[in-house]
């Protein structure tokens, strides 16, 4: 007991000076403000450049819409240059629902050679009975919670949205009712970033480098 008290007293003695405030430099916030503004300007410029690029439906692109690998195969037989729509199956949070398409892996698979100008339409499905809204956030929409809202299909709390995506590896998650962030429990790959946020990974297009 004496030893424990002694330890506590020692820790308290050395922790006390360390708990004192450590002031920031007087110009710290103005430097941070300048850096943030410069970053915001750069982001706006990049955004304008993106806007200046014709939207995908005005570019020469090939888009295939299909709902299952079997249908995709049938279509691929007739259309040599099409890519496949990947269906991402998700379960309701807390295991309240079944996967919509458990046989489909959470990866958008290409059945035909992918051209660089191919736009892949990826369908996201989420089961959330009782949700007022479900949003899809990801690196493809700058993680904006209002950019890509899922549509309620009217049955069994199924929400869906189809999103044009470029070939590559993308991170995504769902936001329920504007606040509850949910990674895809059915996704084959999830990652936790430096910020402690867990997201799911979808690979669009065959041979996309990961």
């Amino acid at each position, binding site marked *: 007991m004496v030893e424990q008290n002694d330890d506590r007293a020692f*820790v308290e003695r050395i922790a*006390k000076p360390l708990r004192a*405030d450590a002031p920031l*430099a007087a110009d710290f*916030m103005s430097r941070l403000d300048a850096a943030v503004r410069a970053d915001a300007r750069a982001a706006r410029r990049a955004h304008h450049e993106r806007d200046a690029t014709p939207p995908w439906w005005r570019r020469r692109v090939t888009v295939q819409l299909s709902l299952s690998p079997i249908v995709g195969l049938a279509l691929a037989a007739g259309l040599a240059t099409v890519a496949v729509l990947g269906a991402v199956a998700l379960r309701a949070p807390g295991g309240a629902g079944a996967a919509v398409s458990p046989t489909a892996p959470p990866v958008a698979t290409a059945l035909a050679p992918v051209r660089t100008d191919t736009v892949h339409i990826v369908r996201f499905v989420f089961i959330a009975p009782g949700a007022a809204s479900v949003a899809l956030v990801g690196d493809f929409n700058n993680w904006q919670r209002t950019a890509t809202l899922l549509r309620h299909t009217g049955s069994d709390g199924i929400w869906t949205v189809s999103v044009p995506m470029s070939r590559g590896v993308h991170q995504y998650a769902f936001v329920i009712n504007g606040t509850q962030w949910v990674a895809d429990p059915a996704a084959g790959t999830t990652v936790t970033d*430096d910020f402690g*946020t867990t*997201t799911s990974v979808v690979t669009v297009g065959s041979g996309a480098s990961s």
Partner: protein
Amino acid sequence: MDLRTDSTLIASVLDGHVDDYTVLVRRHSARCTRYATRMLGSADDADEALQSAFLRAYRALARCRDRERFDAWLMRIVLNECRTFAARRTRRERRLVRDELVLTRLVAAPAQDEAAALGEVQCALDRLDASLREAFLLKHVEDLSYEEMSALTGVGISALKMRVKRACARLRELLEGVRTTGGRTA
């Protein structure tokens, strides 16, 4: 005083009102600054690490999952930035020379006032492994529970307890060893 919640400020920043970001950071900067300064042992290094951490947080703000827990999210970014900064710091030799000088001075003159006490403890703290220093600061300076520490660092609770214990033992060895020697010298 700005009475808006963190969540409201985040929404405002994401809506393009970048001024609100410094309001948000200022609100939570005290703990981040204290931690970075103690962890890195230098106000200049802390300044650099914090600028980098806060800018990274700005860029990732849309990915802040629980906006009402922005403080914990920001602290995690600061902690990671300090880890990275400490790992790549190449001034170790210079710091050790400085530490030796301070320790020598302490032998002759144990800390008399608060600033000197802080310098003495910081000097010993700098000599700990980064993982021990991190655990000690979070537990005994930031006063976090082991559960909070685990969530923040991604390290298991039992490993954290062991690190805190080892940090305390090493600090005692460094500080009381110095004092004993000083007493004998005096």
